[in-house]
């Protein structure tokens, strides 16, 4: 067991855990942040995506030790029901989901894209999200939502 200090959604958090525990379980079970989702545990589907130091990472294959003293953002860290982040608002406006199990990962991957490229083309959006799987087939709506959020950036 080890003490891991993390900066999660701008809050300092400390957990006692096996340092090999994937960050996903630290976030979900120790910190009760249910935004990131378990989808494969293999880094293949993107449901567990969180932002660590400005990059989209797969929390299911990132050991807790690698998150020591890092800044981490989960879906909870973007906005709230009352005050949604522009991306969350754009996803609502475009009704860009069905089950939405993958959408925490999609929204965070999109945030990393827009943070580095505020006005992406369709192809750039597709490329940025290509590693995030969606079984319901909400892809076209997600692309529209990301473009809508980007237009708010203008």
């Amino acid at each position, binding site marked *: 067991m080890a003490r891991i200090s993390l900066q999660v959604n701008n809050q300092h958090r400390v957990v006692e855990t096996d340092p090999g525990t994937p960050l996903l379980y630290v976030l979900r079970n120790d910190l009760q942040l249910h935004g990131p989702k378990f989808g494969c545990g293999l880094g293949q589907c993107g449901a567990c995506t969180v932002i660590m130091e400005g990059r989209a990472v797969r929390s299911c294959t990132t050991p807790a030790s690698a998150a020591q003293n890092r800044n981490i953002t989960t879906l909870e860290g973007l906005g709230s029901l009352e005050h949604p982040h522009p991306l969350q608002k754009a996803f609502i406006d475009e009704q860009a989901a069905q089950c939405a199990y993958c959408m925490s990962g999609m929204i965070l991957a999109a945030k990393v894209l827009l943070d580095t490229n505020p006005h992406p083309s369709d192809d750039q959006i597709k490329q940025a999200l290509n590693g*995030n799987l969606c079984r319901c087939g909400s892809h076209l709506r997600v692309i529209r939502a990301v473009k809508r959020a980007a237009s708010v950036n203008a």
Partner: protein
Amino acid sequence: MSLNDISRNMESPLVSRRSVLKGAGALVVYFNIFDPLTAVLAQESAEPEAASLDSWLAVDRNGIVTVFTSKVDLGTGVETALGQIVAEELDIPFSHIRMEVGDTTKTVDQGITAGSRTIERAGPQLRQASAAARQQLLKMASSRLGVPAEELVVSDGIVSAPGTAKKISYGELVGGKPFNVHIAATGEGWDLKVAPDVRAKNPNDYKIVGTSVPRVDLPPKFTAQFTYTQDVHVPGMLHGRVVRPATVAAKPASIDEDSVKNIPGVVKIVREGSFVAVVAESEWAAIQAAKGLKVTWTTPQTKLPANADAVYDYLENTKSFANRPVVNRGNTDQALAGASKKYEATFRWPFQMHGMLAPSCAVADVRGNKAIIWVPSQGPFDTRARVAKLLGIPEEQIQVIYREASGCYGRLGTDDAAEDAVVMSRAVGKPVRVQWSREDEHGWEPKGPAQLLTVRAGVDANGKVVAWDFLDRSFPWTEANGIPLVTSRQLGLHADGQGMMNGSGGGGDTYTFENQKIIAAAIPWVQPDPTPLRTSPLRAPGDLARVFASESFMDELAAGQGEDGLKFRLRYAAPNKRATDALTAVGKLANWQERPSPAREATGDVARGRGIAISARSTTVVAAVAEVEVNKSTGAVSVKKVSVAHDCGLVINPDGLKNQIEGNVIQGTSRALMEEVKYDSSGIKNLDWASYPILRYEDIPNVEITLIDRKDMPALGGGEPSIGPIPAAIANAIFDAIGARLREAPFTPERVLKAMRSA
């Protein structure tokens, strides 16, 4: 942790129906079936009965209406659509609706959420209950206001007498109190008829139904405020994982418990019958223990097939246990014998996965002879019945609570997970959350069945189709309705049936031929032990394969006569007005140019083609046109655009329906181009997303949709039907591009190249 965190993440015992009636600000009385005191309360409010209006609706003092339904939202937005139907009938704003779904102690059993039947069947049940409630509220208002009921009008939940100042709200009339009104109710499940004699609104007066009300579930989902089954947290909960063999549910000959003794937090290795699982204090410990536990399995008696060819041979040569004649008109054999030209083709459809993004999960709390289960089951009452059988306790002592998971697209491992959780919770005496791994899910989800389809047709001297003979040989759904699931079978329950047929529509029944025979045959597939190739319904069950075969073959007949595919279809669909309308609409939407296939235009590496197909599922009709590019060197197919004309009668929520259609097109494209379960006698070969790829952003087609809204018809299903014609439309577009027929799905580059070589 803030109080908000606790209340959000902790799964409370249930809010009783009584507390809902007390409404905002009232003392909320919780009960659960473990608590003897609240059990009395529960009895007082009794099991919901269809003939009691209070079983369907409750109005609080603020006029907020809680709707009780056993129909669950599988991620399709149906909860919003059902809420629209109720709001419309009661004349209240949609924002006043609260949905209480899928709890066996609070809802009437309206049957499983499946078959695209929720809007079609549960819609009228809720509409009629609402109409009965409105009638009752008007009666109460009449008495309170001293105005005859027929002179009253309702707007936004306020009853008023026009031309007077008299008015009263629903909240004032009944708020916090039950209706205590008996309503007519006959039949059960999908066939339940509620208050059938009460007159409902004229659809021409609809203001809420038919509009794109935004989905109620999406804002909380996008802000991480939504509780999926995976997020359910019960105080004192432990974490469980199953340990299953790679091939067949053989028996554990030995278990080396020492193999996981170094993993801290392991609570118990559970072994019952041939069921093996681990329970641990943390999820990570459970994962490591499940992976590390050394189990030696006995050699199973049941063998997996050696390869796909062996499966198709078996399908071809095994006697069916059921034959469903879908159409039998004229004398097909005689007409075939006398035809000028004869056509025949055989089509293959592989086992496919549901491929649920969230592996199966359930939470169970078993205490003595009672249990509560949180599960994303399509049929909470079905789950209750299965668990009752497994535990050997009465159904009334089990409470099943629906919590959503990822989109499921057919019955799959979620009910298995419920059984797993129940067995583990019973073994450790604490609540247990079971989460399957990705490998468990790909390996052990029940698969969509393989199918072998044969079509024969005869054409007369004038190029007219005079005979149509269609035979679907399919595995049934072994895991649906009655066949015990994996854990039950590992604990000793035996299969006592053959399973249910894999549907039967789509074999050319859209058309009328003088002599026409369409048969769906079910080939036995119950194995002595459960295997990873056990089967269950997969979205629009069986339709994709049947429509792939029948609509490819229609295309072949059209091309054989040098005719345009759309015009040819319209001729034989003429007696079917809705099919004719859908074909015409999709032709217009796709800017269809009349000409025979193939296109024969490409000179370079990339050939372009367009293809059309139509199908009906239950009573919904869908026509689609696919536009593809085929790389003639690599065989790669890229679907550029799919146009869909969709007729499901009266449309409840146009944007919600379009969302479903877009998803169907994309999932259908994925199943057509890339999805196939690979196996040999040692097990399933695709146990992750790398080996079972699905369509990604880079390959997504554009989708254009025409909704044919029929206000004079009932509202029909939209969850599945539009996936039906997609593979066929793509196959026909490939033929149009390269002049070669694909007869086996998925349409991989290898198969495309092979088809080109033999064309």
